[in-house]
């Protein structure tokens, strides 16, 4: 019988059907970080339970790490406390931790793939909503809360309801200056920020098939912004080529065995879906959010909507918070901060695209600009290519790896009403650390262009730097 990847992976990991009708699902890979786990370890200890599959949990530190002075103990004592707790918990349970001294530390959703831990057909859970990123490899990956982190530590399982599957077929060539980020912002705008509730999104179509793993990760990463807890792409040769030779990927002959299994778990051609949607990629233009949720976006040359129709209250609230007026274009909006970073867009290819724009140019005098690589290996690879010099000479700060200004749990944050051109994933009120700060989401190239121009500009109209 034909089936989708979701169904096949789900079936392979189903331990049993629980009396309440939910599935007891085995978790093949559990990723943890310092923010959502200390309480889970405490709960475990309080109940006298141990970690049953310690080798299936991998830890790193990303949310609270400072990106400038990373010497221990951190000057930020609370951050030091949180990191110490993670170190203690990992040591006690025998969990491998990729810390700042490891050379492999970084945003959990960047290092999982980089290390080859993220593989097709694996169920992956992490106390972080952007766990959907790992779906780019054909994994079934989702965010969980701290009580479920406790469950996974204790039992390597969670209790979960089954998901429906919506296939999103993206077809056509992207025009120059349009990126995976624009595609996912388009999908969220079209289907809504809660359109994916109850669904896994399967991204398909020739546009997605042509994408690199980095691009597929950007798409899957923001599935949750469309309400879908899970987003995935069927594994193919691009996936296998990415994984070959990575530290935790199968080695030698086993790799070929793995490829056979990985191919077998892809959705069958005649699989049936609960819903299907088509997107014409060739019509997408560089996209920028103007509001307070990731569905509130426009093309860079498009006027902002008026507070009329069904979502009158939402549009009105967003325009008021942002201080924007309906009918004007987002281009020309003066920015204060430019941030290239986050689990959405801080991989090497993202840094290259941003660098291509800023090379030989300079950040506008009124703009504070920073690049925060997604991981230590990304940072090192970028430095080997001289990207750090490109950014530094252009007036960007070149930082250590971490989540940084995506959610501002470390010292990197907006001040007051500042406007930030950001390659991250959320434009919620207060997201970047100032309750009144404003976030405009866009591709890394668009952030770079805005940093140089000092305002939102259309990257299609900006030639490469020299």
């Amino acid at each position: 019988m034909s089936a989708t990847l979701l169904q096949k992976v789900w079936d392979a990991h189903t331990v049993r059907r629980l009396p309440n009708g939910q599935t007891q699902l085995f978790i093949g890979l559990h990723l943890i970080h310092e923010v959502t786990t200390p309480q889970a370890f405490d709960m475990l200890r309080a109940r006298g339970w141990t970690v049953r599959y310690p080798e299936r949990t991998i830890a790193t530190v990303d949310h609270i790490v400072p990106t400038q002075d990373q010497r221990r103990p951190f000057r930020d004592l609370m951050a030091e406390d949180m990191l110490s707790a993670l170190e203690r918990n990992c040591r006690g349970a025998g969990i491998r931790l990729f810390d700042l001294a490891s050379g492999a530390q970084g945003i959990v959703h960047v290092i999982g793939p980089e290390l080859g831990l993220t593989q097709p057909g694996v169920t992956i859970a992490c106390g972080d909503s952007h766990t959907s990123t790992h779906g780019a490899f054909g994994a079934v990956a989702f965010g969980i809360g701290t009580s479920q982190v406790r469950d996974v530590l204790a039992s390597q399982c969670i209790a979960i309801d089954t998901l429906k599957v919506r296939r999103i077929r993206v077809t056509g060539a992207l025009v120059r200056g349009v990126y995976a980020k624009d595609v996912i912002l388009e999908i969220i705008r079209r289907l809504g920020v809660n359109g994916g509730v109850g669904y896994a999104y399967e991204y398909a179509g020739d546009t997605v098939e042509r994408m690199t793993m980095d691009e597929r990760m950007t798409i899957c990463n923001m599935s949750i912004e469309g309400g879908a807890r899970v987003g995935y792409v069927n594994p193919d040769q691009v996936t296998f080529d990415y994984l070959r030779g990575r530290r935790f990927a199968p080695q030698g002959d086993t790799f070929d065995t793995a490829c056979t299994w990985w191919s077998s778990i892809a959705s069958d051609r005649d699989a049936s879906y609960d819903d299907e949607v088509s997107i014409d990629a060739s019509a997408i233009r560089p996209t920028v959010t103007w509001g307070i949720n990731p569905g509130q976006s426009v093309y860079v040359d498009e006027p902002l909507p008026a507070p009329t129709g069904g979502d009158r209250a939402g549009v009105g609230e967003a325009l008021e918070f942002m201080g924007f007026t309906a009918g004007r274009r987002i281009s020309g909006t003066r920015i204060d901060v430019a941030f290239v970073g986050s689990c959405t867009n801080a991989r090497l290819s993202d840094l290259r695209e941003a660098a291509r724009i800023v090379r030989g140019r300079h950040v506008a005098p009124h703009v504070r600009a920073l690049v925060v690589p997604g991981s230590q290996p990304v940072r090192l690879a970028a430095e080997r290519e001289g990207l750090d010099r490109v950014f530094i000479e252009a007036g960007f700060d070149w930082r250590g790896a971490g989540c940084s200004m995506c959610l501002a749990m470390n010292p990197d944050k907006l001040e007051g009403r500042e406007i930030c051109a950001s390659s991250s994933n959320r434009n919620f009120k207060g997201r970047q650390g100032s309750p009144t700060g404003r976030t405009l989401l866009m591709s890394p190239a668009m952030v770079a262009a805005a940093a140089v121009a000092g305002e939102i500009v259309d990257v299609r109209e900006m030639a490469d730097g020299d």
Partner: protein
Amino acid sequence: MGIERIRQLAGRALPVRGDNVDTDRIIPARFLRSVTFEGLEDHLFEDDRRQLEADGQCHPTADPRYAGASILLVNANFGCGSSREHAPQAIRRSGIRAVAGQSFSEIFFGNSVALGMPCVTLDPATIETLMSAVESDPSLHAEIDLDAMTLTLAGTSYPVALPPGSRESFLDGSWDATGLLLDRFEEVDATAARLPYLQWS
């Protein structure tokens, strides 16, 4: 650990209006800088509260008329965004026992189940009726009954929805799932033994 069955939750209600209220608003990230959940309730909706105060208004969670409420009334896609359990923790620790709204983000919903805090759904028109009634008279008595699947406000009952698995887990006390997941652990090991990728390394 004893099993706590959750069937009926009653008290006064607290309306918080707006679609797509994200978890960053419910509990801003700076309050996640802690190794415990203790005291989170003090920062529930803190930034929204401060913004309204600055404008001479009052957020419902700071409004004394709603003090001591047990049932939170919300609109659509409540709890979207970050998976932080700190959001339902802050709500639960403020005294709220159940949430009723048009729809919820999946992760928020699951986190709330794990805390024994049901999130039931009603149609938008009913939500509006309930919110308006409570705003006019915050003393009204509300009750959610997971057996009857109703929300009753001031004597009038409205049907509520809850996925059957979650409903069952409240009624039979298995919402705190760890014990259940550890039960029959040989089946977990058997599942692991069948997974090809666990045999590769």
